[in-house]
């Protein structure tokens, strides 16, 4: 291990590695910033070159790209309410309202610092714990995974503001939307109406863009042609405002650390739905906050939690991809493909024969995060000025980019129809008090939940949960639901006791 560590660090002495890392960082930032291009598209464009380049050219580029795309995606999520990546969706909930209050620079500072801290800490954790984490992952069979996902589903109840019933209805609708397509257990078509487009279900990107990217633009449009995002507010765009956001991360360091842990664990576990992790981190932040009612109005914790989580998730996912050869996400699948083309077979040999390469990649993620954050910190004050751009310019340009993003995902015009439909749902949801975040979380977790449930049922019968870890997770679920009411009861009793004295 020591020898491999030294070798891994020694790789950074080669100048060309830094060139490829910088290339990956810049391409990753562009891919993340432009709503129309996703990380997977960004990686796919590079695939033809994989055949022609050397491993220590391709792999640093790809690792850097993946590491920083979410960092850049947070900027568009904060400034214009359009997520650069699906992992940035939860950042909109409080990041965009912060921009509306004129605090866009502070939000960016918090997001960038969270991304760096999340990416670096998770990379170091992966570096140090690589041999310990994998046995944990291997001990989680389908019977355990059902309850891990149920814990995620439970966060639906926490995510929204307003009526709890409407929040649960939204989550239920999301779970139903997830059932569209060929059943992954029986292969029978559900709600496909003989349309092959629906065989694979409703696609993720158009749903995310429709629910979360279009409604803020509609809202901006209704302010009139001269209306700006931060209408009537003082827009703070000094570098000290950006640094204020960065300092907020250290003020809320325990929240950041817990969110990093959530992201890392979800990234490490394949098949959980890594895009759900950011919602769970956000929901957790709201759940434990002293003022949960403020979430959604522009509180910095609502930016710190998802942003710490999403960069940590990629380190975890990379570890699983390398060590098990099982991709934890779409980007992991692309990475796996590239590794195989280059002659590396992910699996235990990556932690034995090629440990130095694995450690190099993990360190690249940490280094790329730092470089990307530095670039974005420098540009943040200028970027925050977008809050002053008139809506008549911003709205059509952003809407076009959103539509292109929905189309280029798979090159299907039907996806744009889906985007349109979910735009209507997103706007109606906002107006009528439903919960788009809950709907999206239900949609993301619906398929893995159903899969793991039926596999568990087939393997273990109706009492498949009678095992130590599932019972522990059931206990955690119950604790989750009784935590808040119990806390309130205890608080009241203490207050009454104090009054009596």
């Amino acid at each position: 291990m020591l020898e491999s560590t030294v070798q891994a660090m020694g790789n950074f002495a080669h100048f060309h590695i830094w060139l490829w890392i910088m290339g990956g960082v810049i391409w990753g930032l562009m891919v993340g910033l432009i709503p129309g291009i996703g990380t997977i598209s960004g990686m796919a464009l590079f695939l033809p070159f994989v055949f022609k380049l050397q491993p220590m050219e391709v792999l640093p580029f790809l690792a850097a790209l993946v590491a920083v795309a979410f960092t850049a995606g947070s900027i568009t999520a904060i400034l214009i309410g359009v997520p650069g990546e699906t992992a940035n969706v939860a950042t909109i909930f409080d990041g965009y309202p912060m921009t509306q209050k004129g605090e866009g620079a502070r939000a960016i500072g918090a997001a960038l610092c969270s991304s760096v801290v999340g990416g670096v800490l998770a990379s170091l954790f992966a570096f140090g714990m690589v041999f310990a984490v994998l046995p944990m992952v291997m001990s989680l069979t389908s019977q355990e995974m059902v309850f891990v996902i149920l814990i995620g589903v439970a966060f639906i109840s926490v995510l929204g503001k307003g009526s709890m019933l409407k929040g649960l209805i939204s989550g239920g609708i999301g779970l139903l939307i997830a059932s569209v397509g060929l059943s992954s257990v029986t292969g029978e078509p559900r709600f496909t109406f003989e349309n092959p487009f629906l065989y694979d279900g409703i696609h993720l990107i158009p749903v995310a863009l429709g629910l979360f990217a279009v409604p803020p633009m509609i809202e901006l449009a209704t302010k009139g042609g001269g209306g700006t995002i931060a209408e009537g507010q003082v827009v703070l765009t000094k570098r000290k405002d950006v640094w204020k956001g960065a300092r907020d991360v250290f003020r809320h360091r325990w929240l950041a650390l817990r969110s990093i842990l959530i992201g890392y664990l979800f990234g490490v576990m394949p098949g959980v739905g890594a895009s759900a992790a950011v919602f769970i981190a956000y929901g957790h932040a709201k759940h434990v906050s002293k003022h949960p009612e403020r979430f959604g109005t522009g509180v910095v914790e609502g930016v710190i939690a998802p942003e710490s989580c999403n960069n940590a998730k990629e380190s975890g996912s990379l570890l699983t991809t390398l060590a098990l050869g099982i991709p934890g996400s779409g980007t992991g699948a692309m990475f796996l493909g590239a590794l195989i083309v280059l002659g590396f077979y992910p699996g235990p040999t990556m932690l034995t024969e090629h440990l130095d390469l694995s450690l190099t990649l993990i360190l690249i993620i940490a280094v790329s995060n730092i470089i990307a954050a530095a670039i974005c910190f420098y540009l943040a004050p200028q970027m925050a000025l977008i809050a002053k751009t008139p809506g008549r310019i911003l709205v059509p340009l952003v809407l076009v980019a959103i539509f292109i993003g929905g189309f280029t995902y798979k090159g299907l015009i039907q996806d744009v129809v889906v985007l349109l439909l979910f735009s209507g749902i997103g706007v109606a949801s906002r107006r009528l008090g439903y919960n788009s975040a809950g709907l999206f979380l239900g949609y993301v977790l619906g398929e893995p939940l159903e899969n793991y449930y039926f596999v568990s049922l087939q393997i273990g019968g109706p009492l498949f949960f009678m095992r130590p870890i599932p019972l522990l997770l059931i206990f955690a679920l119950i604790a989750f639901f009784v935590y808040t009411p119990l806390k309130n009861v205890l608080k009241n009793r203490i207050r009454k006791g104090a009054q009596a004295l």
Partner: protein
Amino acid sequence: MKRVLAIGVVTACAVGLVFGLVFPQTAEAAGPEEFFKKNVVNVIVGYAPGAGSDYSARLLASYWSAATDGGAMVVKNMPGAAGLMATNTMYSAKPDGLTIALGMALSSYAMPIIARDPAAKFDGKKLNWLIGAFEEPWTLHIAAKKPYETVEDLKKAKDLKVGTVSPSASSSFIDAVFIHILGLDARIISGYKGGSDMTLAAGKGEIDLVPQPASTGLLGVQKGFLKPPVAVMGRKRVAFFPNAPTFPELVSLTPEQQALFKAADTASFVLRVAAAPPGVPTDRLRFMQDAFAKVVEMKGFQEQAKLQFPLGPTPMLAKELTAFMNEAMDMDVGPVQALIKKYLAIK
């Protein structure tokens, strides 16, 4: 007035530019050699970037230029419905030879016809088959954590769990025939997302037996999740599993069992196939078939192919491929499907 004129000129230029971009002209040429030299062939791949079929397409595309003396081929991904969407799109494309598709022989082309899938908007018998490549048999592996080593051990075991993706997936055909012919006490556990998911489940000890395309099985063995296969579900042994017998070597099959095995073998055949729509001029078709035949013989292509597919390109050229695909589309899989239903754990 000047402003109006300026706007008018700019708008006219813009419209002209846009129309020029929107209506690209293909260069018509004297013969197919010139035609393919001057025009770009689009390969629609029905799977996501990074998948085996995507790799196949990109590899073929990267050698197309050498085989056609300068022609270009571009890969476009259109994942959906196991390649069915890509096939539908290719079928309705202009039959000039510039739009072809690449997908799995069974799931993208034959099975939708066999299953009379109403979403299949093509007539499989009218497709023009260009090249088949990266063929490999299925191998059946015992999970590394399980105490069984041989087929005899499996025959004595109770309540074996065999993984599959879904009842209509190729792996189910393999599972059902293996269980039935050997008379195993086993159930088919459905719902895994793919081969790597099943391999991981086997590594965790969740299931006992896993069917995999041979190259995927090799990866599973290398990762320590699977044991070397107990059987190769094909007619030839596999070079990198020299000790694994073929299923016909393992069991002396009765005529009825032969028929079941043949149906399962054909229905689960792993082969990446490129096809062109009906109506493509014959000379262009022949040119493409010959060009692909040249590509698969190239040393560089064969070496790169082995990185992803250890068995190498294992090509099936146009004539043999056409016969195979026609046979596959006429196959009766009813008896095997009945077996799948019988052994499926989910009802």
